[in-house]
C-alpha cells in the first residue's frame, strides 16, 4: 500500500482478431502510474490509448503481459474477482452514458456502495457532493440534468467509494468548454485535496494540461511523456508525434 505505483503494466500486448486481419492494439507497453497523481494518456485515434485503459481497469483481458492494480494482479483474475475489484478498488467515468436512467442522481452516486452492500460514509458523500456543486440536484433523474451535471454526478459516483484509482475515458468528450473545465478542475482537485489517483484518456491537449503527467501512445507503444504539462507543450509534443514516422520509439 505504500508503494508509489498505483497501477502498472508490463510487456502488455493486446491483439484483436487473428491471422491476416489481426490488429496489434497494444504492442508491448511498460508503464507505471504513480499514486496520488492525475495521469493523462494521449495519442491519435487508433493509438491504443483506450485499449490500454480498458486493460488497466480490468474491463478487457490482455493477450499477454501483466497488469497490477493496487498490488493485485488484474490480468490473471477470474471474472468474479474482477467484478469485486471493480466495485471496491476502481472508479469509472465514461465519455457518455455514465448514469443509470432509472435512478436519481443520489442513487447513481451511491450505486457502487449499494452494489457492494457497503455503508455510505455520509461525511465523505456530503464533501464530494458539495465540492461538485450537486447538492440541489440529488433528487433529479439523469434526463433532468445537463451534460455537465451528468458528468459531475459520474465523477461523484467514481469517488464516493474511495477507490484506489479512478479511470476516466474521455470524460469531457461531450461537454462544452465551461463544463469541461469544471469537471477537469474537480478531477485535479480530487487528486490534490483528497489524495485520489486518477487516470484519464483524452485526445484534447487542454484536458491533458490538467494532469501531473502525460503519457503519449502511438501504434500501441509508449512513445513519450511530459511532466506538469501546458496545453501548448502537449500540442507541440502531439504534433511532433504525428509528424514522426510510425513505429519510431
Amino acid at each position, binding site marked *: 500500500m505504500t508503494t508509489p505505483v498505483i497501477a502498472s503494466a508490463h510487456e502488455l500486448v493486446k491483439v484483436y482478431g487473428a491471422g491476416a486481419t489481426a490488429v496489434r492494439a497494444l504492442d508491448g507497453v511498460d508503464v507505471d502510474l504513480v499514486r496520488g497523481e492525475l495521469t493523462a494518456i494521449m495519442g491519435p485515434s487508433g493509438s491504443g490509448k483506450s485499449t490500454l485503459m*480498458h486493460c488497466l481497469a480490468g*474491463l*478487457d483481458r490482455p493477450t499477454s503481459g501483466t497488469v497490477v492494480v493496487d498490488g493485485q494482479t488484474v490480468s490473471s483474475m477470474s*471474472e*468474479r474477482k474482477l*467484478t*469485486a475489484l*471493480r*466495485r*471496491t478498488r476502481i*472508479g*469509472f467515468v*465514461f*465519455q*457518455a*452514458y*455514465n*448514469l*443509470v*436512467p*432509472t*435512478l436519481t442522481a443520489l*442513487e447513481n452516486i451511491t*450505486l*457502487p456502495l*449499494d*452494489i*457492494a*452492500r457497503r455503508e455510505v460514509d455520509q461525511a465523505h458523500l456530503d464533501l464530494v457532493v458539495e465540492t461538485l456543486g450537486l447538492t440541489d440536484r440529488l433528487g433529479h433523474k439523469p*434526463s433532468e440534468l445537463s451534460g455537465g451535471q451528468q458528468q459531475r454526478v459520474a465523477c461523484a*459516483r467514481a469517488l464516493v467509494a474511495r477507490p484506489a484509482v479512478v479511470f476516466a475515458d474521455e470524460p469531457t468528450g*461531450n461537454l462544452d468548454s465551461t463544463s469541461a473545465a469544471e469537471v477537469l478542475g474537480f478531477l485535479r482537485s480530487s487528486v490534490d485535496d483528497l489524495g485520489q489517483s486518477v487516470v484519464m484518456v483524452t485526445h484534447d491537449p487542454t484536458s491533458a494540461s490538467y494532469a501531473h503527467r502525460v503519457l503519449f501512445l502511438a501504434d500501441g507503444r509508449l512513445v513519450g511523456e511530459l511532466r506538469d504539462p501546458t496545453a501548448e507543450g502537449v500540442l507541440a509534443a502531439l504534433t511532433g508525434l504525428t509528424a514522426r514516422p510510425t513505429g519510431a520509439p
Partner: protein
Amino acid sequence: MVRVALRGVRAHLVRFCLSVLAVALGVAFVAGTFALRTMLSSTFTDIVATTTLGDAYVRGSEAAGGTGGPDRISPEVRNPVPLTLVGDLEAVDGVAAVLPDVQGPLVLVGADGTAVQSTQAPSFAFAYDSRDPAVDVVDGRAPQAADEIAVESATLSASGLAVGDATSVVVGGEVRPVTVVGEIGLGAALAGATVVFLDPATAEASFAPDGTVATIAVLADDGLSEQQLVDRLAPALASSGVPAEAVTGDEVREQSTANILTVLGFITTFLLVFAGISLFVGGFIIANTFSMWVRQRTRELALLRAVGASPLQVFTSIVLQAAIVGVVGAILGVAGGLGLVVVLRGVLGTFGMDLTGRVPVDGFTLVVSVLVGTLVSVLAAALPARRAALVPPVEALRDEVLLPERSLTRRAAVGIALVVLGVAAVVVALLDPTADRAGAVLGIGAGAVVLGVLAASPVLARGFLRVVSMPFAAWRPVGPLARGNVTRNPRRTANTAGALMVGMALVGAAAVIAATTQASTSAIVTQEATTDYILRGAAQGTVPEQAITDVRALPDVKAADTFATASVLVDDAPFAVTGIDPTAVGRSIRTEVVEGDFPGALAAGEVAVQRTTMDDEDWSLGEELRFVGSSGVETLTIGAVIDSPAFGVPFVVSQDVLDPLFPPDEQRVTTVFVTAADGADVEALRGELTAAVRPYVVVSVMDSEEFVSDLAEQVDRVLVILYALLGLSVVIAVLGIVNTLALSVIERTREIGLLRAVGLGRLQLGTTITLESVLTAVFGTTVGLVLGVALAATLPTVFADVGLRTLAVPWGSLALMLALAVVVGVVAALWPAVRAARLPVLDAVSTE
C-alpha cells in the same frame, strides 16, 4: 430502401428472430384455436358421413312426443314407422336393401367389471346388418344369437375386452350374459361413444318391441339417383296408409350435420370467442415487440434520414421489414398451432375422447392465420414507424436518442371511459337479470371493462408497481434497479403483462365459474334432497326397473322414489317432463313452491311448471296445456309453479299421469332417491342396497355427499378442456414476457455494461432481471384475476335460471395462481437473465 430493409433484418438477426417468435406465438394461438374447432366439427360430421350411407330414408311425417334427443341424432321428434313397411319397400323396383334403424341405449360391462363409459358421450347398440355399407367386420364374425355381440373397434380397446371374451350388457334394465364374437370397424373416430352391435332379431326385441322404428334406410340399385329412389318409394308409402315420407340420403345427412353443429354450438361459440381473444393477445405481443424494435433502431433510422432518405422511405423500410417478420412468423405460427392441436388431441385421446385423425388444415385457417400475422405485424409497426420516420435527422448525432414518449393521458382517458361504459352495461344486466338480452349485455360490458383496463394499464402499472415494489426498495441495489426498470416505461411493462392479464382474467373467471357451478350443484342437493341414499345409473344409463323393485322390497327401505323423464310435445314444442310419486315431495325432496300446492296438484293429476318456463311462455296458474306423448295425449291444468333446479326440467307430473303418455321403455330413470325406514340402521342400509343392486352392474349407491362429488366430477371433466386451452394462453403469455425481456436486455446493453463496470455481479444482474420479470408477472396476474373474478362474480345474478345460484370464489386456487405468477416470472426471466449476465462488459460500455 429495399436493400436497407433486408440488410436490417440480416444485421439484427437475434432481434429479428425474437420478433418472428412473437408473431409465431400469436399466430400459433389463433391457428390452434381455429384448427381445434375445425377438428371437433369434422369429427362429428365424419361420423354422420360414414354412418349415414343410405340413399333414401323413410321416416314419420307427423310430429310426436317420444324419448327424442339423447338417443337419436335428430332432436326433431316424429311419429315412428312400423317395421311392416320393410316388406313393402323391398318390393319397390330399384331397391337393393332396406335397413330399419333399430338402435337403443345399452351399457357394456368392460373387462374390469364396470360399465364402459366416457365423458358425456352416449352408449348405444345397433342391429347388425351385413348389407349396411357403413359397418365392416374386422375380426371374428357378426353376432347371430341373443347371447352374442360385436363391438366397435375403439369401444373394444376402451373396454379391455377381446373377441371371444364373455361379459354382460345391460339392455332395458335387464342384465344379459353375452360373448364378444366380433370386432366391427366404422371408419370414423366416434369421439368416445360406446357402440355395440346386436343381431337383428335381438335388437328388434329390445329396441322395437312395438314393431316401430324412427327411420328406415333404403339402398338403391346401381345407377339410380337418390331423388329417383325417393320418387319410386313415395307411391308405396302412400298406399301403405302409414303417415310416412321418403327423403334423400343427402337431405338426412345435411340435417344430421346441421343438428350436430347446433348441439356443438356452445363449444363452437366458445372456441370462436377464444380465437378472438387469442387474436387479441397475439396482436398484443406482436405490437409490443415492434414498438420496442423501432425504438431500438431510432438512431439508425435518423442516420438514414440524415443521408437523405425521406420520411416515407424510412416508413416503408420499417413496414417492409415488419411484413417480412409477419409472413415468416405467421408460417411458423401455423405450423406451431397445428402441432399444438395434435398434442391436444393426444391429451383428449387419453381422456377417452377420440377425435378424427385428419390433420385439420383448411384454407380458412391458413389464410386467416397468415393474414392476421402479417396484418397485425404491419399495423403494429406502422404507428411506431410513423413516429420514427419523423425523427429529425439531427437525432442521429446525439448520444442518447429518446423518442418523444406520448403522454399516457389519452390512453388513460380512453381506458377509463371504456371501463365506465362497461361497468354501466354490467350494472344494467345485474339490475334486470331477467331481461331478454341480459347475458349479451353482460358479455359486452365485460369485454369493454377488459379492453378499458388494458388501455389504462400503463397508468395502472405505474401505480401498482410502485406500491408492490416498495418492500424491495431496501434490497439494494437489486430492488431499486428492478423497480426503476419496470416503472421507467410503464407502457412497455403494461403491454408485456397484457397477454398474461387476459389469460389470467380467463383463468380467474373459469375458476369462479367452476367453483360456483359446484357450489350451486351441492347447494341444490343439500337444500332439495332429503334422501338417505341415491342410486345412479352408469354411463348416463337408466336404473333397471327390476333393481328398483328389489330395492323397494328391502325391509329397511321406506321408499325408493324414481324420477322418470321423457320428452313431450306441449303446444307442438318439445319439452322434458318428469314423473314422480306425489308422496315423494317432502319425503325425499324439498321444493320451493312459488304458487299453488305442489304435492296437491300432482295428486290431483295436474302439472307443476318451473317459474322460468312460466315466465318464458307467459302462462298463468290454472291454464290448460295439451301434452302429446308417444302413446297418448292429455290435457293438463297448471296446478303449481315451482322453482327447483333439482328437477332441471320444465314440467313435473305424477307418475300416474306420465304412464299413459309413454310406454315404460321411453321413460328414463337415471336417479332413484332411497329413504330409510323409521328406526332402520342407515349405515347398514348402505350395505343392503349395494348387495341388492350388485347383479345389475351399472347401478351405484351414493349418499348425498358422494352424489355431489359425483356431479362435481362431471363438471370437472368438462372443465379439463377449458383448462387446457387456458393453459395454452398462459404459456403463450409467458413466452411473450420472455420475448419482451430479452428485447429489453438488448435495448439496455449499455446500461447493463455500465452497471457491470461499476461492479454489479452477474448474480445481482440476473436477480435484478428476474425481479423485474416477477413484478411484471405479478402485475399481470393480479389485475387479470381481479378482473376475471369480479366479472365472473356477476354471473350468479344473471344466470341464476340455469342453475348458477351460489357464488363461490376459490380463494385457495387464486392464491395458487398468484404463487404461479411468481414462478412464471422466474421462468420467463431465465434466458434473458443468463443472456444479460453473459454480455461482455467492454462490448456493453463501448459505443456501438
